[in-house]
């Protein structure tokens, strides 16, 4: 009798193992809590959507993993049977490469990084096109001519976004300034709040930011000031004050990547050159503070009332300008780009010659500040 029971249990376990054998196990490592309502939350939404879309996918995640502990967590995930590991913070870069060396049969994908290996791919859904469009709207809505920006860290990614934003602001409001304050944290509501209050006290009347919580949207709303949502749909936190924003669809990248792994296109041996740099045309990013709402209808009259003279389209309202440029940037041909020369930095040096655009490498290593940016700018080139 006892033997029979043991046998039955063994058979059952074996069957479970077989059933699981068909599944691909992918695991995610997040730098913040999944409830941060920003970066890590967006990745987790992507994970959930991928799990829903791919019936053969099994997922697992660990949250709030400090960068120094990332390697130990990756070892643990490999032991637990993860075949694909998504490391979702820039700071995990060297840990990913170290872990990849130790586990050559496991596929690693590192978000925002630039170091690859045979079994390490990199991926990024970038917002710089959206920031430019947000800038156009911010410039049109600012009465004081001062737009506030709270940045997390002065690194090239944020500088690229702020520069694109400032170029947009200046395109419709040539004398406007973009006041920048840094908080040196990815997720710190209290710091974000005080930085936003400081900007408002200095005269900023429109706010945009990079921080993983809706804090700044709430601060601006309390004062009745327009703001731009970041990363997650934050319009619901201030339905009357959020103008637009940037939304991400990481699932587009995750589903594409995992499907290719499942189909055998990606193996732990051929990822050296696999680098996703997905923008509007791939649908990895979306304009708006709420899915499907590129511009809050409450602001459409104000944006329609502001008429500008665009070098491409001639005289038109900012509302039309945003929609036209959005359509151009959505197109595979990329008929429009925010960093279209000639562009000088705020010190007057020519950064993008006339008729040229920046390469991906130049975008990823951007350190200069666009004209109109006011505030500290560590590592600014001479």
């Amino acid at each position, binding site marked *: 009798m006892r033997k029979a029971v043991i046998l039955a249990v063994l058979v059952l376990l074996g069957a479970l193992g077989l059933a699981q054998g068909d599944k691909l196990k992918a695991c995610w490592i997040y730098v913040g809590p999944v409830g941060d309502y920003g970066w890590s939350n967006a990745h987790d939404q992507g994970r959930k959507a991928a799990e829903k879309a791919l019936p053969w996918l099994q997922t697992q995640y660990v949250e709030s993993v400090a960068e120094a502990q990332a390697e130990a967590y990756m070892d643990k995930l490999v032991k637990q049977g993860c075949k694909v590991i998504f490391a979702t913070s820039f700071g995990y870069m060297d840990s990913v490469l170290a872990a990849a060396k130790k586990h050559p049969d496991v596929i690693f994908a590192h978000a925002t990084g630039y170091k690859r290996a045979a079994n390490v791919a990199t991926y990024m859904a970038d917002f710089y096109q959206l920031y430019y469009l947000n800038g156009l709207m911010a410039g049109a809505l600012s009465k004081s001519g001062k737009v506030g920006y709270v940045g997390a860290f002065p690194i090239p990614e944020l500088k690229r976004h702020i520069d694109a934003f400032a170029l947009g602001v200046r395109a419709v409001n040539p004398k406007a300034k973009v006041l920048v304050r840094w908080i040196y944290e990815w997720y710190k509501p209290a710091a974000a709040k005080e930085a936003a209050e400081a900007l408002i006290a200095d005269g900023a009347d429109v706010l945009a930011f990079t921080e993983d919580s809706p804090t700044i949207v*709430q601060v601006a709303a309390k004062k009745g000031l327009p703001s731009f949502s970041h990363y997650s749909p934050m319009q619901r936190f201030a339905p009357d004050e959020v103008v637009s924003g940037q939304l991400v669809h990481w699932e587009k990248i995750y589903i594409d990547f995992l499907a290719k792994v499942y189909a055998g296109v990606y193996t732990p041996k051929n990822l050296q050159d696999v680098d996703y740099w997905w923008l509007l045309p791939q649908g990895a990013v979306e304009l708006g503070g709420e899915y499907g709402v590129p511009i809050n209808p409450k602001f459409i009259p104000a944006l329609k009332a502001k008429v500008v003279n665009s070098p491409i389209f001639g005289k038109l309202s900012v509302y039309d300008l945003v929609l036209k440029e959005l359509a151009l940037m959505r197109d595979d041909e990329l008929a429009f780009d925010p960093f279209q020369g000639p562009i000088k930095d705020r010190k007057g040096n020519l950064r993008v010659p006339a008729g040229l655009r920046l390469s991906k490498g130049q975008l990823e290593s951007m350190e200069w500040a666009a004209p109109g940016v006011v505030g500290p700018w560590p590592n600014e080139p001479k």
Partner: protein
Amino acid sequence: MEAWIWSATLRALAFGTPILLAGLGEIYAERSGVVNLGVEGMMALGALAAFAAAQLSGEPFLGVLAGTAAAAAAALVFALTSITLRANQYVAGLALTMLGIGLAGLLGKPYEGTPLANTLPESWFIVAALLLASILWFFLQHTYWGLLLRSCGENPETADAMGINVYAVRYSAVIFGGVMAGLAGAFLSLAYRPSWADGITSGLGWIAVALAIFSAWHPLKAVAAAFLFGALYHLSYRLQAYVSPEFLKAMPYLFVVVVLSLSALRRGPSGAPEALGTPYVRGERR
């Protein structure tokens, strides 16, 4: 210029409020002889309970009540382990911090990403904190009950010999500390930033613990210290256009180190309760 000073003062007060509220509670607990390092955890639980109750009932005052009650309950657990069971106060406090943050994060999942419908104004909490500070100062320094509390922190044996129930006093002080931490948490999730998110306290509880030492366990000095800390914090963003942000960011902490070193150099007693951190055992010599 006037507007500049006025807005800076207001922000300094607002940022100083949660630190002051929780710090006052910690001063009371420590004055009775118990170090509670669990402020951060109690604050997180308080913030969550306040948000949940306010959101479900639509009544922010109920939120304040729930926040203080939840944090007080957490403080009771700490009191049980550190006073009755005489566990190491520092370890028990650290455990409470981790437990509080973790539990709040877990239970708070359904509330993430939803704004609070009915909020409370920041100014109410600011005024309440300032009023409470003066009341608590008067109570501690000028009433019989305040004397009882202080004597339990200075010399519990003597207090016991005089017929004071040391355990009861310490229990009440620790639970009161919890109430104040809960109030600070309620301020965060109902007024300062009316929503719930994991990690909403972001280290403010630890600043409150530092505040108790920094203010030499004196409620009125705590007001000045909290205001100063709030001002430094606010100015670290306000002055970024003129001074290096890295330097400004380190300023508040640099300031604490300098003042603590200066106060250590000062002659005479530091102001720390004599029996701070030592569990009291009846009939045993220290």
